[in-house]
């Protein structure tokens, strides 16, 4: 079977300095006075798993177990400290919805901007423009500036752009709960449709029912390691037992 995502023994260490934002002068001074003390934090250790085509995998774990860091490494936003990540296809991270937006620009300009950040050519964006707008249900606001949108409207737009960018692999970090009930239902159907067509999805959520609903397989991260990897139903039942 074809692997969309292969993760081999990935680890991540952050070195957190006590003086993060330093000016040039204080940098020079601290060079004279000795090296800044830096704390070493191991966030991920020895993570290995793979995701196949059309698979939807849930990623669960308590706060601070490295779920978001792992997502950022997979997305190529953070470099890993050790191990390797093999990605086959177009990987689209949906982390922090709408961070590519410019509030003072119109929705139309923002679709072109965000689309291009998501690696779509201007031609592709032009072709998909109507579909993006109508999926987000924002047809009446094409020339409205984004700062006049409600939070929900912006999230719907960001979500719509992301899923129109031809993802082979979707990384979703706590972004499933977008919009009202009806829109959530619609977006979860859209995700299902993408998965049926072969898109692989990695879903981070604290809403366990979301994972239960979408993912047949789940991975439980604990203290930066893969604690369990298997069928969602059995993993969730144990996770609930410990969390309860």
């Amino acid at each position, binding site marked *: 079977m074809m692997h969309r995502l292969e993760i081999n023994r990935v680890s991540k260490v952050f070195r957190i300095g006590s003086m993060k934002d330093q000016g040039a002068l204080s940098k020079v001074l601290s060079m004279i006075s000795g090296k800044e003390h830096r704390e070493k934090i191991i966030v991920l250790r020895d993570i290995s798993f793979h995701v196949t085509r059309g698979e939807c995998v849930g990623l669960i774990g308590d706060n601070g177990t490295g779920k978001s860091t792992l997502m950022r490494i997979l997305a190529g936003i953070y470099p890993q400290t050790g191990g390797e990540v093999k990605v086959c296809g177009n990987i689209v991270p949906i982390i922090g919805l709408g*961070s590519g937006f410019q509030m003072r620009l119109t929705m139309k300009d923002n679709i072109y901007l965000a689309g291009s950040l998501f690696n779509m050519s201007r031609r592709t964006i032009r072709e998909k423009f109507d579909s993006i707008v109508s999926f987000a249900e924002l047809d009446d606001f094409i020339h409205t500036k984004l700062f006049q949108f409600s939070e929900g409207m912006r999230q719907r737009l960001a979500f719509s752009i992301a899923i129109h960018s031809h993802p082979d692999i979707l990384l979703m970090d706590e972004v499933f709960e977008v919009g009202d009930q009806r829109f959530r239902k619609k977006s979860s159907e859209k995700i299902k449709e993408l998965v049926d067509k072969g898109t692989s999805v990695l879903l981070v959520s604290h809403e366990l029912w979301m994972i239960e609903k979408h993912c047949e397989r789940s991975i439980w991260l604990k203290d930066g390691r893969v604690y369990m990897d298997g069928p969602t139903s059995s993993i969730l039942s144990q996770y609930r037992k410990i969390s309860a």
Partner: protein
Amino acid sequence: MELKRIVGTSYSLGIAHFKLRNEGSYFGIIWYLLNPILMFILLLAVFSERLGNDIDNYPLYLLLGIIMFNFFQAITSESTKVIRRDRGMIRSIRFPHESLIGSIVIVALFSHFFETIVMIIFLLIFDLSLFGLLFYPLIILLFSLFSLGVSLILSSIAVYFVDLDNLWSFGMKLLWLATPIFYSIPDSGGLYLMNLINPLYYFITLSRHIIVYHELPPSWILIGTLGFTIISLVMGLIIFKMISKKFAEMV
């Protein structure tokens, strides 16, 4: 493929920032021109009888110097702030970070285009041939690549030094005074030797030779221009490549 994506994203970001600056009104373009033109008028009024006395076509000499310096300043000062400004984007989307710098160059090229039109008007007023301007796109291409290189370096070290933008604006003031923009320097002596290591001196002198004086520049000026462009671009790309991987963690 990678380059194509960088150029595409730079272009989209450039358009977005251009629109942001003007917020849809094209009156904004006048503001770009206001600063260099006022500076030009002021310097012309103060210096044309003194420093400019023995310089042929002093107004053109001055204007070309101002708009070229302005171009370099606009790009480099913006680049000291850009990584922090767009940290949200960097931390959540994977895109080639080079395009953040590329977009700054694109926006600056756009406003430089209007400044060049002012230059053309002056050439016409002084009844000088526009022939030299044919070479200007090539000069500006080299100058853009040079500024891009410097900005790639600045933007990446700005991640380590939070106050680099202040330092740089001070550095730019010194450079403004050290470069023969509103005065000329003799072909020998201390000022001359100092300017031999000033890249802006080469670019501006090259353009003045060609556009204002319609003459071939000395070959060492040409070599210097090319040399600085290549060194700056190569170093910029290497340093940026090294540091940009860590941007998402550091800002």
